Structure formats: structure tokens, C-alpha cells
């Protein structure tokens, strides 16, 4: 966090790490399965003096998502990379590795041949990828060749923020009652699912090199509430001044009030693809409104 905040407009994301560490204690918290309480487990908790530092940490980390980790340009490059990498794996698995542009025994080829091998995983790093980019740009396979060329020349597909448009079109804003918002959120989920399916189908049928439409869905909670898959030890617990131990989301009104950041975008390579995105969004919105 202390590094990622630089040059992003988020200098405030430099958390007070020393203070947080100095206030770390060991305490016992209750645990359970569904509604059944099971007992207590020991874990790290923060002392009462770290309350605001913890709040700042959660808020600062959250703000790094839209500005850095889920930034539209970063994600566009990631999507291109994913499309290219999947194609490399597919060709290697199909016995057509010569079409990838990579030499026999290249770390990417070895990884694609046997991804379970720890040795193959450890041989991959940034340098391997950047070194391979020139070779990939000369691949016989059109998808790999086009994706690598776009990445090398920084010609990234342009972003269409579909979720932003949908929220505006159906009026899912904060002034609604909780019940109305729940209904709007369900409508958004349905629209997103239907649009994503159509966009992917169009891209599959109308692309030869780089997929002409790449879809992107992600969500980020400011602070993940208790989840079945991760358990109570994944939470940040605070030792409050009255000796109670609480999940930070339950005692901090700041953290409790922040809503999940969600994105649904399309990245397009050309104007026809962009028009197609707009048409499909318009069609699906029309269906929802009857």
C-alpha cells in the first residue's frame, strides 16, 4: 500500500504501519458454524488505541482498488494478457506450440505443458514475459500475434463503463429506500449477466485476432464481512476500551457505511465493436423496461 499509493492521488493511503504493529495483541474471539456457536479461538487483535489507524487502513486500501488495482488501463492490459496466455496454453495443449512464436523449452511453453510443476511456476517472472513479447509478436497464431503487438505498442483497447451507464439508466442511486435498492441491484445483476453473455458471444463470432470485445466484471468490498469460505480469523478485530472485542465493521460507522465497489466494463478494439456494445446495452435495457 505504501508503494502503490504513489503517483495516484492517494498519498493519504500511507497507513501508520508502525502504530498498527505496536498495538497488536493476542485475544480470544467467538467462533461458530452458521447459527451454531462452537467456542473460542485465539487470534491477533488490535488494541483500542489503533481504532482510527485500523479505520484508515481499511478505507485507504479500498480506495486503491478503483484508482490502481482495478484501473481501466491496467485491467485492459490484463485482459489482453489473459486472452494471449489462454491461447498459448491452448496451442501447447493441442500440440501446436510452434505457432506460439516461442522456442521449444521456453519457460512459458514449459509452464503451459505442465502447470502443476512448481519448478515451472517458479521459472516465470516479469523478465521472462517482457523477453518473450517480441517473439510472441511474431507468432503465426493471429490471436497471440495481435495481443502481443497491442501490448508491446501500448495500443490497449478502449474502455466502455457499462455499469455506470446501467446505474444511470435504471436509477439505482443512494436516494432510494433499502428495499428499492435491493430490487435495483437484482435488476443490475440480471442485466449484467444478460449483456455479458451477448457481448462474449458477439466477440467470439466476430474476432480473428484480438477479441474485439473483452468483458470485465469485478467487485471489491471495502472490508470483507465474515465469509463462510474464510472464517472469523480473516476479520480485523479490535479490543475496545470497555474490554469487548469486536469485528471492526461492527464498531466503525465509517467502515459500515462504505458500499462495495463494483465494475462491469467492456474493452473494445474498434468503433464497430463499441457501437455493438452500445446496441446490446440498449436492447437489454429495452427488454427490462418491457
Amino acid at each position: 500500500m505504501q508503494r502503490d499509493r504513489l503517483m495516484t492521488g492517494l498519498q493519504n493511503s500511507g497507513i501508520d504501519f508502525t502504530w498498527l504493529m505496536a498495538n497488536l495483541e493476542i485475544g480470544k474471539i467467538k467462533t461458530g458454524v452458521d447459527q451454531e456457536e462452537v467456542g473460542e479461538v485465539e487470534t491477533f487483535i488490535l488494541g483500542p488505541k489503533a481504532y482510527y489507524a485500523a479505520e484508515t487502513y481499511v478505507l485507504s486500501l479500498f480506495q486503491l482498488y478503483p484508482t490502481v488495482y482495478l484501473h481501466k488501463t491496467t485491467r485492459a492490459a490484463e485482459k489482453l494478457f489473459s486472452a494471449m496466455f489462454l491461447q498459448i496454453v491452448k496451442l501447447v495443449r493441442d500440440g501446436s506450440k510452434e505457432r506460439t512464436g516461442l522456442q521449444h523449452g521456453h519457460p512459458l511453453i514449459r509452464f503451459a505443458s505442465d502447470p502443476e510443476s512448481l519448478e515451472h511456476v517458479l521459472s516465470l517472472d516479469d523478465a521472462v514475459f517482457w523477453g518473450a513479447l517480441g517473439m510472441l509478436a511474431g507468432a503465426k497464431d493471429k490471436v497471440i500475434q495481435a495481443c502481443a503487438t497491442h501490448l508491446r505498442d501500448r495500443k490497449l483497447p478502449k474502455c466502455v463503463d457499462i455499469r455506470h451507464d446501467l446505474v444511470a439508466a435504471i436509477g439505482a442511486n443512494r436516494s432510494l429506500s433499502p428495499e428499492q435498492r435491493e430490487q435495483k441491484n437484482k435488476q443490475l445483476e440480471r442485466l449484467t449477466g444478460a449483456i455479458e453473455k451477448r457481448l462474449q458471444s458477439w466477440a467470439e463470432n466476430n474476432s480473428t485476432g484480438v477479441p474485439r470485445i473483452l468483458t470485465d466484471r469485478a467487485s471489491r468490498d471495502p472490508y470483507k464481512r465474515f465469509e463462510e469460505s474464510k472464517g472469523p480469523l480473516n476479520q480485523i478485530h479490535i479490543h475496545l476500551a470497555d474490554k469487548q472485542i469486536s469485528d471492526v465493521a461492527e464498531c466503525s460507522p465509517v467502515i459500515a457505511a462504505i458500499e462495495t465497489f463494483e465494475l462491469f466494463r467492456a474493452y473494445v478494439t474498434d468503433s464497430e465493436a463499441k457501437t455493438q456494445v452500445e446496441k446490446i446495452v440498449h436492447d437489454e435495457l429495452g427488454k427490462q423496461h418491457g
Partner: protein
Amino acid sequence: MVRQEPGRQQAADIVRDAGGRLVGRTKLQKVAYLLELAGLGAGFQFEYRHYGPYSEDLADAMQMAVAFDLVSEEERMTDWGGTYSIYMSLSPPKSQRDQRTAFAQLAAEVGAVELELAATAAYLKTIEGSRDPWEDTKRLKPEKATSLRLSAAKRAYKNLQRLPVPKKLPNL
């Protein structure tokens, strides 16, 4: 023929076949896992997480099932500080009781902790080839695996093993 990945309808069917009401996300996951193990599932993929076998695909599909009004979800706070969900099926039940409904309903009647222990032991045996899955479960979940709960989990698992299913549940 390529098999279609399970989605929201298959997630909703689990709630319907478990009697129309399922209390708890852990219970939903474990019932679904045991259905898969018995050859009665829809093809959800599971991996090991904090509460034993867990399917991210099932969690996502259930979210979509709620969005598409196939299932309703009510979230409640627990006394121990966590939250739990109550799922209610919004589809009519199957007209006839079959192997799947009998199995799902019996599994759903087991306590959440005992079901988690049984599903974990079954996972350790099936996926990780554990020689003593109950002992390994006890080691992984010391705060839950008391002798009383382990006995109840073993009994519940044996009851499930007695049901006629397409694929025999492994002996633990």
C-alpha cells in the same frame, strides 16, 4: 457432448430438494458437496477452505439464483458475532420423492457443525487420500471436533451411507 456448467437453476434446485428451506451457507455448501460425492450433484467443483469443502461456483450461482428470484435469502446475525443465511426455495417441490430429495433432506437435517465435520472427513478421504480422515479432521478443526460432535458426525454420515445412491459414499 460438452457438459454445461451448473448455474443458478442448479443452485436453486439444491434448496428445493433439501425440503425448500436451508439454514446456513455452510450447510448449503456441505449438502451440495455430499450430493456430488453420492453422484446426485449438478457438477459443482469444490476445494478445501476454512469450513471444509467449498465451491466458489456454487456461491456465485446462489447469488444469481437470489437475483433471479429462484430463491429468497434472509441474512441474520448470530449470537457469536457472525452472520448466517436462510434460503427459501421459490419453486414448487418435485412431485415425487426420489433418491436426490431423500439424500438432500437427510443431509440438511444434520447439525451444521456435524455436517461440516462429516463433509470434511469425506473430502480428506476422497481428494487427499487420507488414511484416517476422522483423525485428520480432528487435527484440522480442534475447536469443533469434540468427541461428542465427532460421534454425531460419524452417525450422520453412516445414515447417509445407508441411502440408495448412484455412487456409494466412501467408507471413512
